[in-house]
């Protein structure tokens, strides 16, 4: 079962896809989210979101600024104000 990952900015829905793992730069430290993660909410600091499409694959790096991440039973949603790349 893959993890459903969504990256949303005010201007558009940047990503909405199924991935293996996402590493999010939380305010209190980076955390990786896999499928079946417990419900969790965190603000994020400016930094890189790493998206692993498959286990062991090279991560895709997306720079985000300002926002927060929410994990619920549907997957991971990252709301960011700015996205680069």
């Amino acid at each position, binding site marked *: 079962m893959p993890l459903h990952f969504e990256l*949303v900015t*005010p201007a558009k*829905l940047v990503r909405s896809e199924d991935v293996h793992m996402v590493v999010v730069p*939380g*305010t209190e430290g980076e955390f990786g989210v896999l499928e079946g993660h417990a419900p969790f*909410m965190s*603000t994020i600091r400016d930094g890189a979101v790493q998206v692993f499409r498959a286990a062991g694959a090279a991560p895709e790096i997306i720079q985000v600024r300002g926002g*927060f991440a929410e994990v619920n039973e549907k997957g991971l949603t990252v709301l960011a104000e700015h996205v680069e790349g």
Partner: protein
Amino acid sequence: MPSLKELKGRINSVKSTQKITKAKQMVAAAKLRRAQAAAEAGRPYATRLSAVMASLASKVSGSAAPKLLAGTGADQKHLLVVVNTDKGLCGGLNSNLVKAAKAKARELEAQGKSVEFYLVGKKGRAPLRRDYASQITGGFDTSTVRTPGFEEAEVIANELIALFDAGKFDVAHLVYPTFKSALAQDPTVTQLIPVPAPAEAVAADAVVEYEPGEEEILEELLPRYVRTQLFGALLEREASEQGASMTAMDNATRNAGELIQKLTIQYNRSRQAAITTELIEIIAGAEAL
């Protein structure tokens, strides 16, 4: 009775006006499509943000709630944030917005509250200054950028929040046009600050972990929510402006066409009358010989 030359001049001038309105209509139609797409692209963020807001706001309540959610406790000083367009040629859009703002201001003043204005966009300034010259506290000029984006919304929101923190107002209302269709754009008045508590209380079924804490997240979320509201208003304004402009220019083009037709008939008639008079003169002259 205008002379033939005068008529011809008028027909030509109406024709060039028609060309301009027609061009403006086509430009608006093209821009409308883009503005509508942008407005739709912004919706997922807004819906997700308000969902998160709803679940958080129901958890944090009472004295722990941040000022942006709970308010200052007073309800005396009101601020009307009026979002107008920068350009004209869009029918009654701006005057409708100003009318809605004035109606809200009168309603608040009737309740004994003090009202101030914060104006976004050029076209609302003059009509509001006429009636409320001393009550306009500030404004934001969006005419310097081509399409106002999130950066502009951010600047406006930060300024408003700073004013709120400084105690300049207790309640802020946002007046902006909602785009329904190219024919209908309704002025809408919503409460911006303090952030209205979401109506539907989400049942907290799962135990959600928060990092840092609920209050801290909510504190960061609220300014973001205000920004999103303003950004949404700017997007709606853009779509409404283009929609209204398209309709207004379509009407103008059609009116110009009708006017040209009328003037052409008048022109042909007077030309015919002139020819007939000339013929009568010739015939009368020939008969007299």
